[in-house]
């Protein structure tokens, strides 16, 4: 007899306890930093502990997120980073789903606390891309299928260019409308103390920037960066001791689409939609467009913010460029999107992008984002990351109401 099982089984998830975030931290994001990965991890953790008001002795378990070992040129990267992440002599694990790691690592931290295995879990993400010469792109060569793809001498940007073109074609979207995302996020980043490429630019600057793999031009892309970020996730009885205003994780979701990426229609990120469905069901969100107050979708490319807004159900298919043009996604708009400045403005140290996704969402909902604080009153927000061979969606919903 075949049991009827729903495709996304998020509602069957039974947690032992709720999960609150009480502190976060991040280093500056720059093209090249002198500090090692361990040292960067230490700096981010120190800041998160300070905000939470705890010491490393209070931390019971540690989750580490870091992307390809190829950047660093050695394996056992999780073990290498262990001491910097405060993970020695306690349960410690490393998780990795490429660019999706920046939200997947906090999801793994959530498992630790929600299950009751830990009451205080530290989540650390680190990336040092600058070690690879002549360019971090040289490491990305090794994500391609060695037999079918690599003989064609691909560059990583190709897959994004192919996806962007398909998205533009299906919805008849102009590059001008996509470039507005880059303009917005780089300007938002002017208010971020850690930003790498914050600047005031125009749509024309984007359209006239150097061609990389058309339609992708230089200013459509976030830069490679070094950096680290940290989050502290705790059980309700710990949160109560530490703060009057914790931010609660109300839903988590993740999904991967087939690795046969040339067999998918690239115009829509199904993997993000599946992950969002799982997270929204857990968070009891039925109409994300109305119920989400602030969003941090993953924006390594300007079109990806739009693509992911549609995957997250924050806009209808093909509607995200219209909302952007109308100013809805500005910091003072109805749906502030990437108020941090995102990867396009603050930088893209792969997994450490947690600092501008999960950490930023926490700071926005805790009203601690300073000059970046969105204009409207916020209760609920969503952050998301994406990676592997354009196939993983990782989604986390947070709320300052329990």
């Amino acid at each position, binding site marked *: 007899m075949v049991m009827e099982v729903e495709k996304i089984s998020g509602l069957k998830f039974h947690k032992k306890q709720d999960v609150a975030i009480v502190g976060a931290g991040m*280093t500056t994001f720059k093209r090249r930093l002198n500090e090692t990965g361990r040292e960067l991890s230490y700096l981010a953790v120190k800041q998160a502990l300070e905000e939470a008001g705890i010491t490393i002795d209070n931390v019971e378990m540690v989750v580490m997120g870091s992307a390809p070992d190829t950047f660093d040129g050695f394996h056992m990267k999780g073990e290498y980073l262990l001491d910097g992440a405060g993970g020695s002599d306690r349960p410690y694990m490393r998780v990795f789903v490429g660019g999706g790691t920046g939200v997947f690592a906090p999801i793994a931290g959530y498992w630790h606390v929600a299950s009751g295995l830990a009451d205080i879990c530290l989540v650390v993400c680190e990336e040092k891309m600058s070690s690879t010469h*002549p360019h971090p*792109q040289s490491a990305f060569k090794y994500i391609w299928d060695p037999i079918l793809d690599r003989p064609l001498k691909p560059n990583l940007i190709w897959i994004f260019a192919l996806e962007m073109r398909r998205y533009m074609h299906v919805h008849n979207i102009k590059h001008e409308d996509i470039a507005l995302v880059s303009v917005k996020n780089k300007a938002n980043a002017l208010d971020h103390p850690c930003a790498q490429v914050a600047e005031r630019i125009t749509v024309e600057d984007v359209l006239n920037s150097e061609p990389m793999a058309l339609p992708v031009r230089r200013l459509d892309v976030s830069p490679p960066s070094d950096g680290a970020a940290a989050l502290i996730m705790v059980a309700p009885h710990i949160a109560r001791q530490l703060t009057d205003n914790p931010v609660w994780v109300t839903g988590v979701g993740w999904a991967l689409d087939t690795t*046969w990426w*040339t067999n998918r229609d690239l115009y829509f990120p199904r993997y993000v939609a599946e992950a969002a469905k799982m997270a929204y069901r857990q968070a009891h969100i039925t109409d994300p467009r109305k119920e989400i107050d602030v969003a941090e979708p993953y924006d390594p490319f300007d079109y990806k913010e739009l693509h992911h807004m549609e995957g997250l159900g924050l806009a209808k298919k093909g509607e995200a460029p219209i909302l952007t043009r109308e100013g809805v996604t500005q910091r003072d708009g109805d749906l502030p999107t990437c108020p941090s400045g995102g990867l396009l403005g603050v930088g893209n140290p792969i997994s450490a992008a947690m600092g501008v996704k999960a950490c930023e969402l926490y700071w926005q909902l805790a009203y601690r984002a300073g000059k970046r604080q969105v204009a409207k009153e916020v209760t609920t927000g969503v952050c998301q990351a994406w990676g592997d061979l354009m196939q993983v969606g990782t989604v986390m919903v947070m709320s300052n109401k329990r």
Partner: protein
Amino acid sequence: MAVGKKDIECPPYAEGTPLSDADINDKKVTYVEDHPDIRYSWTAGQAISKFLNGLKEGKILGVKCNKCGRTMVPPRMFCELCYKPIDGWVELKDTGTVETFSISYIDPDARPLPEPVIVAVISIDGASPHMGIMHILGEIKPEDVYIGMKVKAVWKGEEEREGAITDIKYWKPLEG
């Protein structure tokens, strides 16, 4: 437990020591260099070996799943949707449709290319809709490529073919 800093703007400070290219090139910072040299030989496996041997004979091979009804390329030994063995092999045409494309000005190391390369996802005639492979377009100007364009494979000469994806030199517009 102590109570942390609450009335703060986050992140409260930005730590880390930025370096420039010159700091490295002029050896102003302490660093070491290494050039790992690891060799690999990847077996192509059951399905892709057969696919590559087909290319050597000038044929594009796909596989069928009778449960979901899909004809798939690149071929695989199991249908990932139905999670069962495939039901047979079929020869596909060496024509197809451009699903999406890009004009690349950079090589795998992000160095500029002397001439741009046109890369495309091409859905293969005879396979199910959107069943594509990634390959290169040729004999066409970048500005003339469009989504939906019909293309045909340009093969290497029989004696040059070695059972590789590059046995197809590129795809050119299909006239008429």
